């Protein structure tokens, strides 16, 4: 393998993989997408990410990088001459990192829970938490975008990628629960942002088709429930 070849262990359903793909697209890096079977996990995945056994995994020459946000920062730093993904100002970078961590640690677990919760009261509470989180993110968007199209300003940046990767799944969950999660009334700016983000050339080709994802989600919920039961 050439020392600079780029490969990405991926899956069309994974929002985390989408983060890596968008970052590579922004930098116009040619890469090979290696679809991962997931159930069961491939030997390549288990070997290259023994710690988490998860995708995405970026293989750059003989270097292996795991964890989507670590990968995005790596891509930003290695292909430094391309358009910047993290903001240039250290304080703006800190804000972007803070909210990306919030999205992953606090907000998304509620979204994921929605796929497995059965009980109505718990579902209602989770839906509320998701919406509350989005209202917070709407405020953040106002501060970060400074009137422009994206969290990153004129162009997609780190925080756009961190949140935007979940849009297709959000839309699928809205169909499943029959509840508007990211709506024009409560979060008008994010609502518009979602449309702008999804139609960006560096995003659009890799964003999963919502009908296809909805179909996939039917079996996926069952698998997630089984996986969670095993872990307990």
């Amino acid at each position, binding site marked *: 393998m050439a020392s600079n070849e780029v490969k990405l262990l991926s899956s069309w359903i994974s929002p985390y993989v989408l983060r890596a793909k968008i970052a590579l697209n922004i930098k116009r890096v040619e890469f090979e997408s290696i679809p991962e079977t997931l159930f069961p996990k491939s030997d390549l995945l288990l070997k290259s990410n023994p*710690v988490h056994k998860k995708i995405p995994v970026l293989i750059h020459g003989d270097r292996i990088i795991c964890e989507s946000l670590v990968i995005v920062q790596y891509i930003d730093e290695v292909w430094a001459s391309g358009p910047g993904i993290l903001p240039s100002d250290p304080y703006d970078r800190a804000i972007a990192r803070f909210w990306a961590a919030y999205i992953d640690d606090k907000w998304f677990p509620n979204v994921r829970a929605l796929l497995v919760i059965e009980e109505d009261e718990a579902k209602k509470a989770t839906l509320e938490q998701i919406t509350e989180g989005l209202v917070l993110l709407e405020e953040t968007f106002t501060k970060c975008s400074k009137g422009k199209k994206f969290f990153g300003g004129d162009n997609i940046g780190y925080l756009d990628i961190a949140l935007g990767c979940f849009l297709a799944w959000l839309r699928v969950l809205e169909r499943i629960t029959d509840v508007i999660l990211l709506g024009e009334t409560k979060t008008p700016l994010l609502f518009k942002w979602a449309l702008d983000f999804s139609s960006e050339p560096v995003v659009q080709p890799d964003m999963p088709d919502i009908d296809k994802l909805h179909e996939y989600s039917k079996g996926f919920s069952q698998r997630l429930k089984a996986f969670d039961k095993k872990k307990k």
Partner: protein
Amino acid sequence: MGEVKLIGAWGSSMTWRVQMLLKMKGIEHEYVEEDLANKSPLLLQHNPVHKKVPVLLHNGKAIAESLVIIQYIEETWENGPSLLPKNPYDRAVARFWAKYFDETCLPAILKAIKTAGEEREKAKEEAIELLKFLDNEVKGKKFFGGDTIGLVDIALSFGAYWFDIILELVGLELITKDKLPNLCQWIDEFVNYSFVKENLPDRDRLTHVFKVMFPGSAAK
């Protein structure tokens, strides 16, 4: 470079991480001690999302989350010693392991501390399995950062020093020579590293703080 203020809590290993970097870089700052049992308007104003320490205030702008703060400090005060390597791949590796400890190992370790009996035994086994990856990572090296301490060493400080005190209180032995030999060696190197040694919080006072944090912990 402007006014720097750190809101922290004595005994908090997350606060300690940031204090170490500020000291390493010789950054003058005002330290504000937070009473976590009675959170101040200052803290709640500047970290409304998590309401936790540490929070760094630089010219009035607030940054929260220790690993975010650390990277902010590194990027704002670029001169002097650094916790993060220069090379992007090494940085990615450092970020990966720091994240792994905080998000995966620490919850498992805390679970082992807080439970008892069979549940504790199970949690302990799980925590040891998770720590084996870190044990492997530091094998053959003095520190995770190489010859000098880096981001991962600072991130793991809880495991090195704080944890030993908790062990005494709770009788939970996690990092042993037979299961995690390289981590054991690393702990030794880390707590004896001059800069760290001079700045570790007083053991007796920390023991007292933990007795409060983990009540009933005297029971073995």
